[in-house]
């Protein structure tokens, strides 16, 4: 599943668009796995601006699949990292040196975009001006409201907290500060009554 249209939900739930080039002095493009396809789609009509662009590509699951294709775009700077956590220092360093007038483009899974957005916000850039396009899995990054532990790549509802072991209901309430959705104990009122887990959006 590369492109997925999330159904409308509560205002707390982030929404995603389609990347488009905006005027700016520099372009910082941050993508994970299938997000590479979003980059290729949006730069197709105009590759010239890539001479003022830095592509940070995180190949968490895609290995070498997209690397040579992205490299051939010949952006001013190109970085490939094996995971978000391995690449975040690169992003922080880029943000330290970046100037206002830079445009930010994020594409990949929700957890990936959320964490990158959080890093950019911490540098003082408004989240409203960061472009996002969802690509890849619909799995979520969840925070357990009880033990505060984060469980990555949650694909079923309910799920078991990776930290405290409670059965958690997947809510659409989202925190930009944590870059995570909220997971709330599903059997708090009726101990042991845990519904069968269902894959998200099926």
């Amino acid at each position, binding site marked *: 599943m590369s492109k997925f249209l999330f159904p409308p939900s509560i205002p707390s739930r982030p929404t995603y668009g389609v990347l488009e080039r905006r005027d700016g002095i520099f372009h910082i493009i941050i993508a994970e796995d299938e997000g590479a396809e979003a980059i290729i789609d949006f730069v197709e009509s105009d590759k010239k601006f890539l001479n003022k662009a830095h592509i940070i590509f995180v190949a968490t699951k895609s290995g070498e699949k997209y690397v040579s294709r992205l490299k051939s775009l010949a952006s001013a700077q190109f970085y490939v990292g094996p995971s978000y956590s391995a690449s975040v220092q690169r992003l922080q360093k880029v943000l330290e040196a970046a*100037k206002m007038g830079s445009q930010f483009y994020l594409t990949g899974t929700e957890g990936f975009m959320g964490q990158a957005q959080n890093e950019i916000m911490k*540098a003082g850039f408004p989240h*409203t001006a960061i472009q996002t396009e969802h690509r890849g899995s619909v799995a979520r990054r969840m925070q357990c409201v009880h033990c505060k532990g984060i469980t990555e790549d949650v694909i079923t509802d309910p799920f078991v907290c990776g930290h405290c072991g409670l059965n958690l209901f997947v809510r659409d309430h989202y925190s930009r500060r944590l870059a995570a959705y909220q997971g709330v104990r599903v059997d708090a009122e009726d101990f042991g009554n845990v519904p069968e887990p269902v894959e998200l959006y099926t």
Partner: protein
Amino acid sequence: MTAAPQKVEPGVDIIPALVDKITKVNELVTRFEFKRIDGKDFPVFSAGSHTVIEMKDGDRTIRNPYSLMSDPEDGSKYAISVRRDDVGRGGSLFLHKKIQVGDKVNLTYPLNLFSLDLRARKHLFFAGGIGITPFLSMIMQLESLVGSWELHYATQTEELASYGEELKNKYPKKVNQYFDDADQAILLQKLLTTQPIGTHIYVCGPAGMIKWVTSTAKNVGWPNANVHSEEFLAPKPGKSFQVRLCKSDLTIEVGENESLLEAMEREGVNAPFSCRGGACGQCETEIVELDGEIIHRDHWLDSEEQDSGTKIMPCVSRFLGNSLVINR
């Protein structure tokens, strides 16, 4: 230091005050300092706030908004600086020529339409002429918070740069001055492309300067959320017109030299207002019937709303035509 009572409406509710000190700053600008009649402290305010000063000139009531330029944390006084406008409708001339120490005026509780975004990593200020006033309080607030700021201040001449010398002496590395008569200009393009991520821009000055800064910022890719501006419009005189106020069941005449808002106030109609300069949106009024043209002069309605002919901002906008009925 006292906090404002919880239920006051900023920009509307009144604090009776006395003129405590009048200081000529230069040929065009005079500073007025006020203290409260009841001897208490004024509420502290957030930097960038303005107050509407209400003065009696004979039978006429003048209400003009001015940025507060005193220390936001100092409740012992409020201060404003006023540029004399010889061709305006007389508010600034009244302040310059008739107001005396000891006179009573009413000040509204401060309202902030131009506040600092304290999430900013750095605050970049652009002032043109008397547009320096909100930055004086902002600088004091940021100095107390140890915030990062930089001022670019353009005036016609060095003499007309109110507070320029004081600022330059106090913060030599942060204050940059530009004098038109010496052909000095802000290197805007360069400034706006060399700021660290997280910088916010604030601009206050003539309309042309605001447009220059905001459009240059947009062109080099700044998000709107990081660009702040404030411009109070003085209501411009125009042809007199009649307007029907359907809720009040009144037909009133708006004179050449008064605004629709002032005409309603003259007739005792309870019309909401705050900034009186087309910026805050408080006085927005629905148009019930329109045969003619609204001369929109505000910064509040977007161009679509203005074109729709369904809303008017009575503080600055006027009417030309046969008949106008508003829901007031």
